[in-house]
């Protein structure tokens, strides 16, 4: 009897424990609270649109912060010298300047990561949306067009990566294991086909959602760029293909040259008739275009523009600044010499740097100045600087514009012509150049005799300074490895950046570019 009682109690205990065991459940699925999953998302119009803008928005994070540095600091156009011994980024900018970067360079890794991160966001959206039924949501853009646009954003990043690194892997879905390096020629073919396949699905300028997005002509502009640089990157010329795409853009009549050289770069440059593809920025809502902060001198920015924290990091080599004649309106994009600002009474006042007036010297004493150099180098203000306490700018950053299309066509014509200008080429360049001079100024026009390839490179420098084309231009014109100020001649293999050490480490299927170990 007593034993039975014990057994009874034991049973209760066992059952109680067992109940806890199974009622508290052994299910271990994760429940999310402050995030969602693709299965539960892209169900409404707003949700689909939030995914569609993701790849576009991501461009904001890297185009000026990183891509600019890799396209400009390796050239004669922009430099970030050491002043008073303050070495920024452990000397990365100097290594860029001297072409002594290694595969461990963090900023090269950033560029690689940014390109493939953008590609990853494109792939993720395409993967998520392709099999979703989004009809009936009331979207003003079709699924096919959204996917085609995102494929163009992807193609743009593949183009940049191809230009930077040459031989790169191509992936179209998130999660593919160990993708292998493809040759620059294979990548070229992939990008070319991708753009061509998708152009018919894209919209046009003037559509309700066209601005800052890939239209047919924006896609053609990218294709033209691909063709223009094909020979320099992979050895096969595509001049006729380039001309064909430029013609299509020019003949579409969607774009006209702005009357003033700087209209495409105003704070409100959304009104430009020349810009084909821009990255829209906003000081609060779409940040990270902080050219004024990076470039303006700290003594000048507060009084002239209201910006207290300016870095005076990025300036320009004297030789490049000297390309600009005094009668060229485009010289207005530089701040040089004694500096003034207009006070609240409308009067011009000198800008003081300590006790003395700030004078920006075109001559930079040294790339690494451990004692001073606090005012060495002219400053670019091509993008209009708005009076604002905010470091981020609201100007939209220009990627493709009509004048470049005209230059590309002119260059292709000249290269087809053995490097000499044709009258068609000269006219195209003169059409752009005219607005930068007083009417009738004889300096405004080239002839087939004066427009040599080297002069075309110089004119590209004047027209497209700080537009992130200088690296490609120097490579294409054969001057990238030249000796210049504070830079010895560099080896030809430097036209490509090395595949980042960490990327190869993580994926042995990637092959390092020749010349780098």
């Amino acid at each position, binding site marked *: 009897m007593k034993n039975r009682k014990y057994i009874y109690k034991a049973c209760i205990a066992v059952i109680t424990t067992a109940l*806890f065991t199974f009622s508290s459940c052994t299910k271990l699925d994760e429940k999310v609270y402050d995030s969602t999953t693709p299965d539960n998302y892209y169900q409404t119009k707003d949700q689909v649109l939030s995914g569609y803008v993701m790849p576009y928005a991501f461009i904001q994070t890297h185009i000026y912060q990183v891509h600019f540095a890799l396209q400009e600091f390796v050239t004669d156009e922009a430099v970030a010298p050491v002043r008073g011994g303050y070495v920024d980024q452990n000397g990365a900018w100097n290594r860029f300047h001297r072409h002594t970067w290694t595969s461990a360079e963090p900023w090269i890794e950033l560029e690689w990561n940014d390109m493939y991160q953008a590609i990853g966001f494109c792939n993720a959206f395409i993967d998520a949306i392709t099999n979703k039924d989004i009809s009936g949501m009331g979207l003003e853009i079709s699924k096919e067009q959204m996917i085609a646009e995102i494929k163009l954003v992807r193609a743009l990043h593949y183009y940049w990566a191809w230009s930077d690194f040459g031989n790169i892997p191509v992936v179209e879905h998130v999660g593919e294991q160990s993708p292998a390096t493809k040759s620059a020629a294979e990548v070229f073919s992939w990008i070319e086909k991708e753009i061509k396949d998708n152009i018919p699905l894209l919209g046009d300028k003037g559509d309700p959602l066209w601005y800052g997005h890939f239209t047919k002509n924006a896609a053609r502009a990218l294709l033209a760029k691909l063709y223009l640089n094909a020979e320099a990157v992979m050895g096969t010329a595509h001049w006729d293909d380039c001309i064909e795409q430029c013609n299509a853009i020019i003949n579409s009549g969607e774009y006209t040259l702005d009357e003033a050289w700087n209209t495409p770069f105003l704070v409100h440059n959304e009104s430009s008739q020349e810009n084909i593809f821009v990255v829209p920025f906003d000081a609060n809502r779409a940040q990270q275009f902080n050219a004024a902060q990076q470039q303006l001198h700290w003594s000048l920015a507060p009084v002239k523009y209201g910006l207290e924290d300016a870095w005076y990091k990025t300036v320009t080599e004297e030789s490049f600044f000297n390309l600009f004649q005094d009668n060229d309106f485009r010289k207005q994009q530089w701040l040089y010499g004694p500096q003034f600002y207009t006070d609240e009474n409308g009067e011009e006042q000198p800008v003081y740097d300590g006790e003395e007036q700030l004078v920006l010297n075109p001559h930079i004493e040294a790339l690494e100045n451990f004692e001073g150099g606090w005012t060495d180098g002219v400053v670019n203000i091509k993008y209009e600087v708005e009076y604002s306490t905010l470091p981020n700018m609201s100007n939209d950053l220009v990627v493709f514009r009509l004048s470049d299309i005209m230059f590309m066509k002119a260059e292709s014509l000249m290269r087809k012509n053995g490097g000499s200008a044709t009258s068609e080429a000269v006219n195209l360049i003169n059409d752009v150049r005219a607005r930068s001079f007083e009417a009738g100024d004889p300096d405004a026009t080239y002839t087939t005799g004066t427009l040599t390839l080297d002069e075309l490179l110089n004119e590209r420098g004047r027209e497209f300074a700080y537009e992130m084309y200088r690296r490609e231009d120097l490579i294409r014109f054969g001057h990238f490895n030249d000796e210049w100020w504070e830079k010895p001649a560099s080896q030809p293999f430097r036209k490509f950046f090395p595949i980042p050490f960490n990327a190869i480490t993580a994926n042995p299927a990637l092959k390092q570019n020749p010349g780098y170990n």
Partner: protein
Amino acid sequence: MRIFTNLSHRWPKWLFMLLLIFSVGTKVLAQNGAVVTGTVMDEKGEMLPGVTIRLKGTIQGTVSDANGKYSVNVPGGKGVLVVSYVGFLTQEVAVSGQSTLRITLIGDAKALNEVVVIGYGVQKRETVTGAIATVKAEDFNTGLISDPITLVAGKVAGLAVSRTSSDPNSGASFLLRGASSVYGNNGPLIVIDGVPNGDLQTIAPADIASIDILKDGSAAAIYGSRATGGVIIVTTKRGKTGAATITYNGSIAFDQIARRYDMLNAGQYKQLGEENEIAVDDRGANTNWLDEITRTPVSNVHNLSVNGGNDNTNYYASINYRNFEGIDDATSRKSINGTLRLNTKGFNDKLDFSLNLTNTFDDRSFANYGAMAQALNMLPTYPVRNEDGTFFENPDIAYLLQWNPVANLANNKNTAEESRFQGTATASYKILPTFKANLSYSMIKNGYLNNSFSSNQDFFQVQYQTGGQASRSQNNFSSNIIEGTLTYTKQFDKHNIDLLGGYSYQREFNDYFGAGNNSFNTNAFLYYNLGAGNALNNLDPLANRSGVFVGSGASERKLVAFFGRILYNYNEKYLVNLSYRREGSTVLGAENKWGGFPSASAGWVISKENFLENSTIVKNLKLRGGYGVTGNQQSLSPYQSLLILKPYSIYQNGYLGDGQTGQWVLPYGPAINANPALKWEIKKEVNVGFDFALFNNSWLTGSIDYYHRKIENLIGNYTAQLPSQIYPSIFANAGHMVNKGFEAVLNAQVVKNSKFSWNVSFTGAYNQNEVVSVQSEQFKGTSLNITNTGVGFTQRVAEGYPIGVFYGRKFAGFSEDGKWLFYNQAGEAVLAEEAGDSYFYLGSGVPKYTLGLTNNLRFGNFDATILLRSALGFKALNGKRIFHENLSNFTTMNLFTSALNNAVKDQMYFSDYYLEKGDYLKVDNLTIGYTFPVKSGGYVKSLRLFATSTNLLTFTGFSGSDPELPLTVDLTSDNEFTVGPGVEPNYSYYPYTRTFTFGVTASF
């Protein structure tokens, strides 16, 4: 030393090599006047003073005097005397009419007869087969304790404790048997009164009764999934049967900076500028900036506890108040803790019910380590204040590198109000005398309210034109734990069996809410009126909205486990311990959520065999060995295996429109690289050791252990394959790591007599760590860069090297014009620009040897303790030298006086030029106490005064503030810069202090 040589003939000479002296005494002189008298002695016949003799069931009692004599009043001449003395078995002696009683205590197998807490139960020390260390309250370090783990620093072989800062708001860095993971969670699992994953900050150090450390895999495996870093079991004090005893501990403490950096004064700074033809910005001052932001802090601690009970119920309640001041003007911490423990029996003693409630409230004001570092950067020629009394600032220095740290402390406030609750209710029921069911429910609920305020006069607020900022955020953590166990204990003849089966469920939930605003037209509100900021409602497109935010978030994780254990021994001579835990965790990949964690260990008490039974040398000898598997998933945040979508960034909206009319849309995309293949990190550990007690009275005891642990599927935040992943890093499993080493513990009761006793304890550990591989299907790398101190990466996780090995250039001298020369791969000295990819492995920042030596001395009523700690065999990097010895920084920061003779005149680079030997020996704790003789039966039961100095002396060649450097890598930090083992960074600073504490302990 000489004076001791005549005290005992049996001291081996080597013991004299074991340094200084002193001993704990907790003795109270006895008073005569009773019915039963006698003496207490040990087995050898030596008289024992200070033995407690209590009449069972009453509060009456006494203690033996200096000659071992006692007398106690036994009403009616009948009763039971309970005789207890530290280090001896407690005896119960029946009294029936005798007037004299000679009591012989059986002793000195003391370390062997303790009860050891092993997780879901206790075990006699004698039958333990794993590597388990126990430290009781009487052996804890004294002084000003802000992190309870420092109570046992230097007391446990293999537990490396590094007090990496003297900031009362920061904890110590500790590692058990070397690094156990390459990422994040390296530390042991903390179990407080049976509640796993507790927070040591929840309990007051004064309430801790003992700390048990389960070191090897076989001992820790019962805690399965979180035990890879070992398990630290904290047991708090509970009530003792008898009338209420009130105990008060109080102390007051002062700090001083233990070691200062020698910064240039204004004269030296100007001299250096002149010598090098660099313009000096001389504002006519000579300021010692560190003096300007530091003080002599006064801290005080008060603990009041009461405990008592009868045969059925006992209780322990305490209130603890601790008020810490930091060495800097900003730091403080006020902590108040209330604790209640209740144990009661019912149903004919079949039901045991216990309730533990602990609640702690902390009010903290945080140091600004950046401002402390700025005190070393600020030029000595600058004044603190302008002539008009306002703070001096110089925004004209490039990159805003000169900002006044005194002003910064005055204009910024970072505080937190924290509350921590832990409650446990446990019921156990004896179904049969041998069969017990146990059910417990525990809840942890912690809340942290963080507040931040920057005045609109703050330098950066002015520079960035943000007009003052304020923010608050509330973080909550809750944990609910249900555990049920069944135990069966039975003795058949000489077979002892102890079976355990159980189930455990734990759910942890974290949530967060925060908001901030800027642009305040008054500083009067601090962070108490966020809505008053103008920025939130300023819809001007150019309004400065930095600091304006509203955010919230939450995450959840669950663990479910089944476990069982068999403890078996034959006659306490042959010992076997088997356990198994099957555990599942939500944070792992769908296919890999469950893991199995078995262990087996065995022991053989050789001294119980016939051939040793009568040995005069070997009193106890036990050989033990074990193998155990444990896991780790705690390093992983939830949701790493899921493809989750989140808004990308409120600052990166996408544009939808035609350029004229349009809208900005918050973009959504994948928030992480999902890794559905995530699995358990597994540690497999072999441990072999022996315990011994030697010589007469077992005056020398100790143990030696060897372990080999292999940690597989290392969880890390690895470089992702990009493409085709989206983000540059991914949480994955890759490779394996090995830790092996030796641990030795020696305890010698050198002298023990009525007037004088001296006890020496030594702990020593050797650990060798090697990352064997960091490769897997998902990560093909051979190394990971980990530590960035501001001049690029300086450390790595690399195959074939210990975790956190220094990696960088090899210094080869300076060129004639003072430029760096480094060795290239061919061994030639070249300029930095030509060194290309010539980087080398330069040694480890984790100490190979950690040693501790405790001397306890008692001399009459005086007692003294001296603790020496040492860590040897590691490289240390003083990151401040890279900056403060470099002339290129002359205009933007002050330099060390060493720059007068040895300034570097080239760009800053990290190389082995800056690596130093980190070895140190510390006189870490020196305590002297005096115990007053008290009358028995009076109100005062005991009274002791003590004085302690911590961090008293440091012997080291390291040039930094202190060689007690971090032991682990902080990879979880979102900062651009990180700290690794053996690294003192430049960007943050908190001086180490020497502390003097004066205190009293009294019970009533």
